[in-house]
């Protein structure tokens, strides 16, 4: 999401200027470990569980969650990649472009799908993802894991697994990287 925000918020190509580090790399690591335990606890046995990372920020998190789940439960979890561009409700209002090709090589019918994104903001990306995911089969259940819930929801969507609840101003930006989570501002080029 951070990447999406950076590339799509006007002016395009704006630069993220961090103001404060809110999670360190080890904080993120601990949050992933905790979330994988929560996922394992809630979906006993992890049968038919799949992770789907949302382009672009959710993809590395989904992979790390899958690795952590494998360490916790000894089960290999399939990981898919989803780009929601064609399902967004703001096509035509601003430039919306796919960042990468969707790669879901397994049928989702009957599966428990955990959507993974880095930042949950308005909820519109997740709304688009719910529609997109339904094209790959009728999932038994869809859950949502995010590293940061920054508030400002515009739709009735809530996460099931959260790394950190982070109150923000609407115009701030949250950047999730391997090095941790930073909050800051977007400055035009």
């Amino acid at each position: 999401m951070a990447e999406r925000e950076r590339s799509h918020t006007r002016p395009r190509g704006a630069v993220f200027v961090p103001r404060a580090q809110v999670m360190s790399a080890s904080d993120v690591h601990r949050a992933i470990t905790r979330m994988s335990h929560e996922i394992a606890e809630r979906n006993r046995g992890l049968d038919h569980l799949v992770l789907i990372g949302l382009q672009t920020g959710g993809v590395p998190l989904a992979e790390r969650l899958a690795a952590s789940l494998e360490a916790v439960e000894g089960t290999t979890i399939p990981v898919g990649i989803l780009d929601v561009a064609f399902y967004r409700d703001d096509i035509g209002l601003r430039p919306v472009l796919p960042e990468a090709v969707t790669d879901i090589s397994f049928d989702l019918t009957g599966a428990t799908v955990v959507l993974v994104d880095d930042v949950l903001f308005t909820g519109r990306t997740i709304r688009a993802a719910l529609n997109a995911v339904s094209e790959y089969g009728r999932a038994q259940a869809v859950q949502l894991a995010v590293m940061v819930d920054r508030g400002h929801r515009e739709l009735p969507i809530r996460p099931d697994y959260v790394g950190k609840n982070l109150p923000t101003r609407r115009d701030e930006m949250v950047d999730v990287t391997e090095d941790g989570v930073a909050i800051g501002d977007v400055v035009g080029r």
Partner: protein
Amino acid sequence: MKSVDQFPHHLLSIDDLGSDGIAEVLRVTDSFVEVGHRANPKVPALRGRTVATLFFEDSTRTRVSFETAAKRLSADVLSFAVGSSSVRKGESLRDTVETIEAMGIDAIIIRHPSSGTPTQVAGWITNSSVINAGDGWHEHPTQALLDLYTVRQALGGGDEGMDRFKSLQVVIVGDIRHSRVARSQVAAYAALGAAVTLVAPPTLLPPSIDGWPIAAVSHDIDKELPSADVVSLLRLQSERGSGEFVPSLREYTTRFGLTGRRAAMLKPETLILHPGPMVRGVEIASEVADLPAAHITGQVSNGVAVRMAVLFLILGQSPAEGSSDV
């Protein structure tokens, strides 16, 4: 972020796109190829948009390809059949086009026997986008884009495939004089850095090729084939009178047709392309058209995805006025 800041409002010629625009079309096409592999190959991206196909010339594959592309994007498609329209009652092109625009059409996909018609139409209308689906001898941009996509796919796809265009030897054989496809192909391959050689009898070359971004012109196909990475064949356009420019079809086949003997001269990895409709036994031998090196049906299926990308980029990329929601 690898994207053009603003995709052009119309697609009239390959030059409208430039190398960045071409790269963007090919990149977005990857996503639509994925959509095409799904059980339901349809996305809601262009819901509520309407496109009209306005074909003043016969076409099956281009029209069906554009209409399929628009429907898979959930756009509404208005198929304007010139034969049964007011054009036959004497309505001028300008009035026809303005009537269509007044109905609130977002894009007009036009094919016309006269070169430059789409450009002229784009000057008349105010809001709709115009997409050139072939105009006279001028251009057929989406055909060239789907050729590039097919080549890029065969070269490994992605950025790696794009980079390999810079060292690519492309040979275009056939009726270049009357071919809008050739003009778009030359511009498109050249924009990506490929070296294009035109092969044709002197009569089937354009009166002037000054300023064409080509590496060479040749009248001897046998000399060009061994070094070619891509051989792109063109049909003799009998409806544009190209039969009068060669002594006989048989002589053309003997000197310029891609026969089985000539196909054996190609490197094993060389791609054979043909925009269709192909005339087996004239510009391409039937057994050559069915070789694994011939990507002719692959071109057709890529055509839908490429046209989805073009429609999505043109209609889905309005300037971001007053919206910064994520």
